[in-house]
């Protein structure tokens, strides 16, 4: 006899099983209440976003200032050497 046929027969019988009922409506309601409104999580997110924007602007301002101090190495090569009179 085929083993798979036996398994199928077991399954047919198993489908008749009476499963328990727990009555979870009140527990679900409590869990939903304790999970709280979703909008609360937005406040720390906005705060974090604001702080990141301020930090980014400071870095950009510093970078612009430092840009002017930078020397271009190509230009340095092309600039003729100053001749210094030794005597």
């Amino acid at each position, binding site marked *: *006899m085929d*083993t*798979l*046929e*036996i*398994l*199928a*027969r*077991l*399954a047919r*019988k*198993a*489908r*008749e*099983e*009476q*499963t*328990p*009922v*727990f*009555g*979870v*409506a*009140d*527990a*679900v*309601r409590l*869990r*939903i209440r304790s*999970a709280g409104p*979703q909008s609360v999580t937005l406040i720390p997110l906005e705060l974090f976003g604001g702080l990141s924007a301020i930090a980014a602007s400071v870095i950009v301002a510093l970078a612009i200032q430092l840009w002017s101090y930078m020397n271009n190495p190509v230009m340095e090569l092309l600039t003729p050497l100053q001749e210094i009179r030794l005597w």
Partner: protein
Amino acid sequence: MGEPMTDAWCKCSPAAEMLERATAILQNTLVENADWFDVAASVQGDEEAYARLVRRYEKPITGLLWRFTRDPAQCEELVQQVFVEAYFSLKTYRGDAPLLHWLRRIATRTGYRFWREKAREPQETSSAEFDILEQIEATEEERIDPSEAAAVLQALLARLPAPDRLVLTLMYFEDCGTKEIAERMGWSRAKVKTQALRARRKMKEIAEREHLLERLGWTL
């Protein structure tokens, strides 16, 4: 004057069948309308409306999750998780399928997640599982207790990896086809078919190793 309707007429005539079908359709429509009303109210924050939905669908959802664990405490926890998750996703329910189908999809994924999380935990030898398989006795097919049959089948299925176990659980207990399994899990149908083929082969090997056929003593 017409003759009074007999029981035979009620059971056999095409008109009676049509009447029965129409009543079923009407009942389904009424339930779906009630669902719509309660879903809309729940989205607006009406807790009592959502409690009504939970009470209406708790039984089939528990029945499904009972296939993922036979531990009543774990099963109750999973049922609660499903309804909490469903509550926070209610806005995404478009109503193109009955609410029960949508809930079943959430429940199947919750149960599957539960198995995968359990598989990651350090394995303990489940003596209960061994006991169930050891205690199988030759019983006539008609006389075997459905709970016992389910426990034996679930103990055998527990030896498969989670994806194989899921496909066979839905096929054996929920009588699902490959299309429905694919829809519930968001998998392709080809994947489900391959998985089912492989899972059946493994399950056959497990059942033969456990001498299931000899122990049950069933004949064709």
